[in-house]
């Protein structure tokens, strides 16, 4: 779920980004920092290809695609663009023109009677997955949603689900929204019943990180991103992520991407931010890597390697 950012918060975030970027130049991961991107700088080493699983298309921003493509070029980033059905054509066309930068993902309302039909149309347009699925009227694993999952399974798609606490948009009107319907625990059943789907949970189940991690541990087709408020909430204690992703170097996990022995290889990069803020989220990931001693090879998988392989891009 995209969090709206006020101008004040944005400015604060920009200042913090600059400060963190200066302190964390992505030397280990090969990510280009702001300083290496300045005009006239010496040639930078090859940049890590980043894949962002969590990029919301902004239909109300007429310059959105241009902004995204500038950022994408600068950071060597591909975005899975989460697209409402009514905007499907424009994003499909942009993806055709910029296949290395835009991977189209379709948003459907799981409770809408036409959801399965919309999924078929997304597929016909070349969409590669679904997301961010959210605001469901029943728990994600309810059988009434199985027709959508069956199609996604047939297409061998990636499906991104919101997990955990979800924002409240209306404070004075009733709304039929409940975070518990989007618990990470429900992704397990979907992953087991539909083994050809790659299931990605946004926000690592915030606050149920322990469940999210255990489900990722046992299910090769489940991954989580750390977008949203998780990395901010844990910023003073990022090392605690090692308590949740605890099984590195043991035989207690299932198969990981590239047989990587780190439990952190069950994470992928997701920003859930507008183009101006993606770099800030990268610095948050980098801070977590350092706090938890995540190996460089694993960092590369998280930032793009795993999704590149799944989506066959690179």
């Amino acid at each position, binding site marked *: 779920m995209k969090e709206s950012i006020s101008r004040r918060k944005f400015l604060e975030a920009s200042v913090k980004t600059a400060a963190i970027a200066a302190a964390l130049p992505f030397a280990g991961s090969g990510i280009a920092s702001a300083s290496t991107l300045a005009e006239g700088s010496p040639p930078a080493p090859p940049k890590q290809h980043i894949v962002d699983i969590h990029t919301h298309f902004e239909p109300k921003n007429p310059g959105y695609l241009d902004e995204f493509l500038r950022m994408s070029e600068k950071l060597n980033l591909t975005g899975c663009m989460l697209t409402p059905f009514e905007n499907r054509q424009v994003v499909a066309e942009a993806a055709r023109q910029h296949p290395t930068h835009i991977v189209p993902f379709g948003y459907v309302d799981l409770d809408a009677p036409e959801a399965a039909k919309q999924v078929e149309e997304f597929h016909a347009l070349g969409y590669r997955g679904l997301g961010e699925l959210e605001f469901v009227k029943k728990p994600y694993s309810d059988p009434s949603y199985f027709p959508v999952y069956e199609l996604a399974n047939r297409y061998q798609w990636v499906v991104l689900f919101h997990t955990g606490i979800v924002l409240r948009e209306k404070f004075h009107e009733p709304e039929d929204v409940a975070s518990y319907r989007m618990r990470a625990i429900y992704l397990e059943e979907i992953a*087991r019943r539909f083994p050809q789907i790659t299931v990605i949970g946004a926000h690592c189940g915030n606050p149920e990180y322990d*469940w999210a991690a*255990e489900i990722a541990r046992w*299910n090769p087709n489940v991954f989580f991103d750390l977008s949203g408020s998780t990395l901010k909430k844990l910023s003073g204690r990022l090392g605690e992520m090692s308590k949740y992703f605890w099984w590195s170097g043991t035989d207690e996990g299932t198969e990981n991407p590239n047989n990587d022995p780190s439990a952190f290889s069950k994470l992928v990069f997701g920003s859930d931010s507008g183009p101006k803020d993606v770099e800030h989220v990268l610095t948050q990931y980098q801070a977590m890597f350092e706090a938890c001693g995540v190996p460089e090879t694993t960092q590369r998988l998280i930032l793009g390697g795993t999704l590149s392989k*799944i989506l066959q891009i690179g």
Partner: protein
Amino acid sequence: MAALGLNWPLLAKSSALPQTPSPASSQPSSELPALGRIIDMHVHYRHQEPGFLDTFLKLSDRLNLAGCILTPFEHRKIVADAAKAHPGQIIPFGALQLDAPEAIRQMEEFHDLGYRGLGEISSMKRNCSDPEYFPVYELASGYKWIVMFHTGIVGRGKFDEAENVASGRMRPIHLEEIARQFPKLTVLGAHLGNPEYEWAAEVTRWNPNVYFDLSGTTLPKMAGRLGDFQKILWWSDVEWEAQPANDPSPFSKLVFGSDTGTENIENVLHRYLAMFDACNVPAATRKTVLGGTMAKMLELHD
């Protein structure tokens, strides 16, 4: 182009523990202190392992350990015979599939053969507290049996085939309802609800007929912070209306379970001992956890 579904091969997965195993019949790598009689409530009968019962009996002799042998229906007779021959070492438990149409009939046959309980109940198609399963619990209650449930995250057997399994149906919170609806039943939860340790602890705090073991990955996961169990089992020195015995320690709501092969049971014992040390568990409570509670329930005498 469609995204590739993941088809990574199954990693060789077992409940093997990281330490080098010591053969059951040989001496352990480090001596155990005198622990009194140990009762392991979580020993799966390994029918595919030749000589399993003999190997178990050797270990049982050496460690003064009795095991609740969790037995699939098709192997009920061999384990029943072994239990009759070695009543102080083998306690037969029936592994029942709650969704099987013949579950009740199987329970009756287990009972006729002298079985003492059910377990490990796992991988059901509904929440384990679903009324559909109440006939099983009613019969078990009538038998005054112990019923041991898997709780929390559950292993995935098949990665490329669809399976109807969900850990959410086996949350420790569901055991509370079973324990309340069937107060004569003794409910054991395996794995302390991993990762819902706090729910497991709160459920056992309020229900005298609920206990948990620490088998599985919980103790390895918590190895660097075993003292955290004091935060989970927190209610020492406060009024505890549901206290089952005279032991005031909340750790008395744990029982010993290994959920591993005979070669690793001793390693699990060492892990329990490390947790006891980290949490300053009193000596009397340690004995209660490792065997005293189960011996009383099962009316086993030294």
